[in-house]
Every structure is written in C-alpha cells, then in structure tokens.
C-alpha cells in the first residue's frame, strides 16, 4: 500500500463520491491555492525515464522532497522552474505553464551547485542579480543579512567556503521575495547551527506566504518539513506530514519509515 498518495487523489475521490456542495467548494478553493500542479509528468534524460508519470500538487508551507541521490529530485525541481525539457505531462505554477514569462520573477531557484560568479564578491553578485530582477540595494542588503553573509560582503566568492558559497547562491534566490522558492539541497555541507538557522528562515518565508519546496537526501531533515514527499526511482512513494508518515508505517523515524515504504512498494 502506498501511504497517503495525495497525488491527484482529490479529484478522483470527488468524481467517485460527490461531496456536498460547500465541502467541494472548499476543496476546490484549496486546490486553487496550490502553488504547483504537476500532472502526468514524464522526463527522459539520456534515454532513461527519470520521472515516471508524476502527479503532485504543492501548496503553502515547507514541503520537503526526500529520496536517495539519483531518484529524480533535481529533475523535478528543474521542471517546476521551467528549465527542464519535458517528455510528457504538464507542470503549472500559480495557474500558468512552468517557465512562462510572468512566473520568472515570482520564483526563487537555487541549484545544487552554487550558481554565483566565483570572480565577483558576494556584494557584487547580489547587486548584479538585483539589477536583473529590478530590485534595489535595500533588498540586496536584506537578503545578504538573512543568510548571515554580511561580514563576507566584500569577499570574492571563489575564496569562500563551500557552505558560504551555497548561502551566497541562496541569497540571490531571496532577492525578490519569491512566491515559490525551489531549493535543491540547500543545506549540504553546512554545520548544524547554520542548518537550523536556514530551516528557521525557510519557515519564516513560508509563514509570510511563500511556498517553499526543499529537497534533501538527508533523512534527519525530514522532521523540519510541514509536508514530506518521499521519492524513489522517479515516483512519489509517500506523501504526508512527517508524523503521518511515521504513524502509518509504525516507524520511529523517517529513515525507517522510508525503508518500510520502499519494501512495501517493491512487493
């Protein structure tokens, strides 16, 4: 059995047993609020089906995408941002096709590798991207402070530590107060204090109304998410809050829950 496969479940249930008007209206309203709707998404890379007929909706709060490396997390994230070539299906963000022009300044995207210029200082990087996005110095300063890189402002990015570089890259994604924040393994290589601070930041952004979508292959980060999507070999094998997933499998932690679900999925 697959635990709470919310993927496209709501519409199907509604068709099967019609709900009373007001409830249905509520569900529809809830669905409309979804930042991301993925329908039957197929992505093929190098002759290999990386995403297999994926159906997902992502709403507010912090949604975690967990799974082993190579399971398709980055490909899914690239599809949401609109830089991935799709082989089938559709991805819509705020009701529009992913990657379409009006979405480009509403989405903050951080790739796994720090996408900043190594030969510029942290401040120069931020000011450049700020000009591209049409925001001012104040926003650049604010986003520098929010990732705690103020003291490194005048340092060349190439000479920063790995964690500092990825925070510089994150700061760029925060410049324009994005409505959807797509973060591909943003906490890799960071010390525990910084990781905690960043997760607090993600929740602050979510509380301010942004949908935050974070991937990780570290299972102990799962409990920091409002909702979890467990992914394996291009499919979502579980979907629910961390406590729901633990409860349904009877496991103590997400890692054992994941293993239980994988075992169930395979049989």
């Amino acid at each position, binding site marked *: 059995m697959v635990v709470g496969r919310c993927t496209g479940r709501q519409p199907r249930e509604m068709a099967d047993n019609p709900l009373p008007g007001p409830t249905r209206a509520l569900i529809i309203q809830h669905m409309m609020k979804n930042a991301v709707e993925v329908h039957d998404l197929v992505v093929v890379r190098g002759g290999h089906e990386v995403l297999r007929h994926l159906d997902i909706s992502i709403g507010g709060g912090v949604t975690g995408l967990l799974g082993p490396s190579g399971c398709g997390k980055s490909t899914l994230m690239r599809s949401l941002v609109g*830089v*991935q070539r799709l082989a089938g299906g559709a991805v819509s963000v705020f009701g529009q096709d992913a*990657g379409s022009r009006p979405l480009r300044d509403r989405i903050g995207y951080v*790739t796994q590798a720090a996408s900043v*210029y190594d*030969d510029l200082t942290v401040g120069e990087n931020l000011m450049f991207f700020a000009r*591209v996005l049409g925001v001012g110095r104040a926003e650049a300063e604010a986003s520098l402070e929010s990732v705690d890189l103020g003291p490194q402002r005048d340092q060349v990015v190439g000479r920063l530590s790995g964690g500092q570089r990825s925070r510089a890259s994150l700061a760029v994604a925060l410049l324009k107060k994005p409505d959807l924040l797509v973060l591909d393994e943003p906490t890799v290589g960071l010390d525990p204090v910084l990781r905690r601070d960043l997760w607090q930041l993600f929740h602050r952004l979510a509380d301010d109304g942004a949908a935050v979508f974070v991937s990780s292959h570290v299972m102990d980060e799962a409990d920091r998410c409002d909702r979890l999507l467990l992914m394996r070999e291009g499919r979502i094998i579980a979907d629910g809050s961390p406590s729901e997933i633990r409860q349904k499998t009877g496991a103590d932690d997400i890692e054992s829950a994941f293993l239980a679900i994988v075992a169930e999925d395979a049989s």
Partner: protein
Amino acid sequence: MTPRITLAVAGRVLIQLRRDHRTLAMLLVLPCLLITLLWWMYDASDPAIFDRIGPALLAIFPVIVMFLVTSVTTLRERSSGTLERLLSMPMGKLDFLVGYALAFGLVATVQSVLAVSISVGFLGLDVLGPVWLLTLVAVADAVLGTALGLFVSAFAQTEFQAVQFMPALLIPQLLLCGLFVPRDLLPTALEKVSDVLPLSYAVDAMQHLTTSVSTAEVWRDVAVVAGFALAGLALGAATLRRRTA
C-alpha cells in the same frame, strides 16, 4: 530586451575582467607587442611589407582575442549554472548576448586605440584614410569575434573544445583573407570561398583605409562584417535554450 538588464550584464562582465588583471593585461598589451614584433622583423629588410601586413593584423587581433575570451567565458557561464539561473529570471536571451557584446566591444575599443596609436604614432604605419575609421573597423571586428565565440560555445562541452574551435574556424579564414596571397590571385574555388568569409572583409577594410583616401569601400566592408556579427548573435540566441535535456 530590457536596457536595464543588458547594461547589468555588460557591467558585470567588465567588473569580472577588471578583477582578472592578467587577462586584462593580455587583452590590451599583447596586440601592441605583436604588432611591434612584426614591425621589427621587417624594419631592416623591407619596411614596405609592414605597411602591407600591419593593417591586416590590426583587423585579425580583435577577432581572435575576442573569439577566445567570449567562447571560454560563455562556456563557463553555461557549466557553472549561472546561465540557467539567469534564464529562469526575467532576462531575455538578447540581454545576455548584447550585454556581452557591449562589454567586449568596449574592451576592443581600448585595445584597438592602443594598437592603432602605436602602429601609426611609433611604428610609422602609413594610413591614408581617417585613423578613427581604422578604430571603428577594429571594433566591428571585435564584435564579430564576440558573436562567433558566443555561437561556438554552444557546441563545446569543455573549455578545451572551445579553444580548439579557434584553429577550426579562424585559421582557414586567416589563410584565405588576403594576408598571404592577395585574394584575386587565389585559385577560383578558393577565391569564391574567401568571398563568403567575414575576415576577408575585415582585412579588406583595413587595407583600403591604409592605401586610399576614399571610404566608400570601407563602409561597405564594415557593413558586411556587422552583418556577419548580427547573424552570429542571432545564431547564438538560437542556441541559448531555456529548457535543456
């Protein structure tokens, strides 16, 4: 295209160059040293040869240098993920390309002013036409180099490959541009080929400027070079894909 974004790209490229002292020195000093070397080679035996080859070199330097710099920097931008990030932002492809062309065009202007000043002022290169037009032709050549570099960077996976495109694309043009054998003395088939290569027109413009006071042919050549540069930029834009596999 948005002027704000185009200028942001150009400004950023210039800041990056300013920080890279070695590249900047090579860009500005190397052409001057090479043209001086050429002058020295022929000064004792046959100074007339310098007057014939010098102008061609003034056209060829900017194309080669800008081709190399642009193809490598654009490739770096593709592989580091910054291009993907920019394309997920409200940046037009032309903002990116024109931004690069502006920045390197500016560097090329400085480069050409230096090389032309040294050639005319110190090395006694005879220029019958207006000297400022010589600089303008050199800038058009540099933009051509930038456009070609942007285009080939799409077909290279590594910086090694990008550099190999230089001999593949530029050396044949160098051989057929009239520097070694005047173009009308080439075998007919090769003359036809050289007629469709942009460097032939770049060198032709320089040679006209040094040997004649009339500028009509020069403007025609500049127009051809500019046409090739625009075509290169358009092809470059076609190779910048928002969605990749």
